[in-house]
């Protein structure tokens, strides 16, 4: 349970889950208890340059970059505006308050588990609870159809993305190795790599025994002081919110910059509809805040709600002129939902591992992302060391191994000797994997989404390959009683893919919708393929690139950001 009562007993004026904090010209200072920073505010009748829906890796980053470029920006988030130092407990159950737990129906042959592992409801989005793994795509993935024979090409050039990756790595002061074993040369990571825990050393042992490379995982938690952030103290609660601010989430990196540059952030503000006019342009957003619906006028709207809420909002905004939802002339909005495989192998060591200490994924191998020989499937995968806390671990043993009764309690007593390896793997885009709307309504009166997911044969072959290989690695590292966790997935991408052609994609390479020139989508939804790495670094890099493209388009008059342009429409 989430200790709902505990929250009720707090001062009602300062319960961030019930009352917005970013009001009266100020926003929470995320680095100081009870403190505030000034925030510019815009009137609802004021036509802002950009209304951004979502403040996670896509929306939060873009809000910062656009505000710094001089645009007027209001960014909306359905979640609360936390001050980590005062709002985050060291507790798995209480910290589920960070997750998007609004009802969603799941079906298909392999129904997804949503919420904890893939959906955040906070200012800062899922980066408030992400595992901080910050990886670059393999360059060939941006042209996977042409070069590797599967999926779809991206309308982005890897060399350009390489410069945006570097910008994000610097902005987050990623802690990583001096040299990275795979792919083209990249700069040294800004901060030194973290010390390895025992679970990470098990990964290293296994990789070395099998003759493949491994490295310290590049992580968005700092290994030395940075401004008001102290170095990571290895609490191990990373996926439940960092209570010390070592984690370089969007909440404590891009958003303070955004506020400083004049952006407004509206917390507890759920956008339910994008308004369009007779000229087929968007004119603003309807949003729910403080128990009522409001309307914010805007010259441009950016949807950045992640791969379920983004298509949901586009579908919910259907009009008689756009009966299938906005930006959906291709019929692809909501389709090609891609999660990533998150299968694992687990075993027992005689050594004490105590994997609860430190960030959960301190070591990684991307061997099977870069090696194409010896595969009976398209795509690739990375795997990392793991550090599940007790509730998650017990749910894993119960859910994936079917343990209960004495068998469960006894196995849980081997917690400190348990160790595992877990993949992030590249599932294929399939149109049948999709987000649609149901007739059921949520607390805002909005239709709740249905999320349909099934593996294709390629996905299943990759699952088998990864499980078999990781089993060998774990065995070689000295673990015994190894078992497979076959059912887990992570991350959400696709559902509004970018591409070269309005008939086969939703947005162009600038994240601009083909159908409505002042409607943009900037989050994991735009991924045409998903790659075998965690998506957050790529989402942030795309947001940085999109901001630069918007600046360039505006400079040459190709952006409807000024009122005189609007009158011409």
């Amino acid at each position, binding site marked *: 349970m989430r200790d709902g009562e505990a929250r009720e007993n707090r001062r009602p004026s300062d319960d961030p889950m019930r009352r917005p904090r970013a009001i009266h010209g100020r926003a929470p200072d995320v680095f100081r208890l009870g403190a505030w920073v000034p925030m510019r505010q815009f009137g609802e009748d004021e036509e802002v340059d950009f209304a951004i829906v979502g403040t996670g890796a896509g929306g939060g980053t873009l809000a910062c970059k656009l505000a710094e470029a001089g645009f007027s920006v209001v960014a909306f988030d359905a979640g609360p505006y936390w001050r980590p130092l005062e709002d985050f407990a*060291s*507790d798995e159950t209480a910290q589920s308050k960070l997750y998007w737990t609004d009802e969603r129906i799941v079906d298909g042959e392999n129904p997804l588990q*949503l919420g904890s592992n893939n959906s955040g409801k906070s200012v800062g989005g899922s980066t408030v609870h992400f595992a901080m793994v910050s990886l670059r795509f393999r360059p060939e993935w941006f042209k996977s159809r042409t070069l590797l024979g599967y999926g779809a090409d991206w309308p982005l050039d890897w060399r350009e993305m390489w410069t945006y990756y570097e910008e994000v790595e610097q902005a987050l002061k990623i802690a990583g190795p001096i040299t990275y074993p795979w792919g083209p040369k990249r700069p040294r990571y800004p901060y030194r790599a973290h010390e390895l825990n025992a679970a990470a050393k098990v990964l290293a042992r296994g990789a070395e025994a099998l003759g493949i490379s491994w490295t310290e995982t590049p992580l968005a938690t700092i290994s030395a002081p940075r401004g008001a952030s102290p170095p990571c103290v290895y*609490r191990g609660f990373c996926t439940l919110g960092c*209570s010390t601010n070592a984690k370089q989430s969007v909440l404590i990196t891009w958003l303070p910059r955004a506020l400083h540059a004049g952006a407004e952030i509206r917390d507890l503000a759920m956008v339910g509809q994008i308004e369009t006019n007779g000229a087929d342009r968007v004119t603003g957003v309807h949003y729910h805040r403080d128990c009522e619906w409001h309307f914010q006028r805007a010259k441009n709207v950016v949807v950045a709600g992640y791969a379920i809420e983004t298509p949901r909002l586009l579908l919910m905004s259907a009009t008689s002129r756009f009966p299938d939802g906005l930006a959906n002339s291709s019929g692809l909005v909501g389709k090609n939902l891609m999660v990533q495989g998150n299968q694992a192998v687990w075993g027992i060591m005689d050594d004490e591992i105590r994997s609860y*200490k430190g960030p959960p994924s301190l070591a990684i191998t991307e061997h099977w992302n870069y090696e194409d020989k010896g595969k009976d499937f398209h795509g690739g995968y990375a795997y990392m060391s793991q550090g599940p806390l007790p509730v998650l671990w017990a749910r894993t043993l119960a859910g994936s191994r079917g343990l*209960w009764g004495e068998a*469960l309690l006894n196995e849980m007593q081997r917690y400190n000797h348990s160790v595992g390896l877990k993949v992030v793997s590249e599932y294929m885009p399939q149109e049948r994997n999709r987000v649609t709307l149901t007739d059921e309504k949520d607390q805002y009166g909005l239709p709740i989404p249905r999320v349909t997911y099934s593996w294709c044969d390629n996905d299943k072959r990759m699952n088998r390959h990864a499980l078999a290989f990781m089993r060998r690695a774990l065995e070689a590292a000295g673990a015994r009683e190894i078992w497979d966790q076959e059912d887990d997935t992570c991350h959400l991408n696709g559902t509004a893919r970018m591409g070269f052609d309005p008939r086969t994609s939703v947005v162009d390479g600038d994240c601009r919708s083909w159908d409505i020139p002042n409607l943009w989508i900037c989050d994991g939804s735009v991924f045409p393929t998903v790659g075998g790495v965690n998506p957050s670094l790529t989402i942030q890099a795309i947001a940085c690139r999109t901001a630069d493209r918007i600046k360039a388009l505006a400079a040459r008059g190709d952006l409807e950001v000024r009122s005189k342009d609007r009158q011409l429409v």
Partner: protein
Amino acid sequence: MRDLYPGYDVLAKRHTPSWNEQTREVIDRRLTIARSDHRFFTEEEWATLCAICERIVPQRAEKQGFVPVAALVDNKLHTDDREGYRDAHLPKMQEAWRRGIAALNDEAQARCGAPFHELAGAEQDELLSAAACGELKCAGWKGMPSDAFFHRRVLSDVVSAYYSHPTAWNEIGWGGPASPRGYVRMDFNRRDAWEAAEAYPGHEEQARQENLRAGR
């Protein structure tokens, strides 16, 4: 289950740098939930829930401390604290529990002529195992698959409730809350002074002494 970490009590760290104020607040709140507290379930449902919990996470009379697991599950349902997704075959969480408990009782009556909580442990296990395999299909389920109910609701909710409690943390030797102090020693077989010491055969007393120091 063994007394693997003798003398270890994660609550002894309550006033050390491993616990901050907001952690004390949420754990204190959880600890006020007493074994018999229930607001969501009716008396009849409550008896069934307690029996289910006793099979999923059995607690022997002689063990140290007790996890009020049924009361924690009831609290979750009372506050309607959901997870963020719902199997298309299941109704909403509260309805799923009411329907599933009623159906389990119907099955118990049909098979053994008594309500679920009056059955012997082995009979209860048999019924729960049948539910886990999706074999229970009496009218009381109203189309809800018993395997989805067992895995998505019973196992998930009961197990999560049990391991949210400090007593369960002591049993498995977890360090518990760790903010702001965190940890220093990360290598194989290394342990900070504020972590639980495992009792290896013949060294139980040494472990106990070390565990008594964890809260200092």
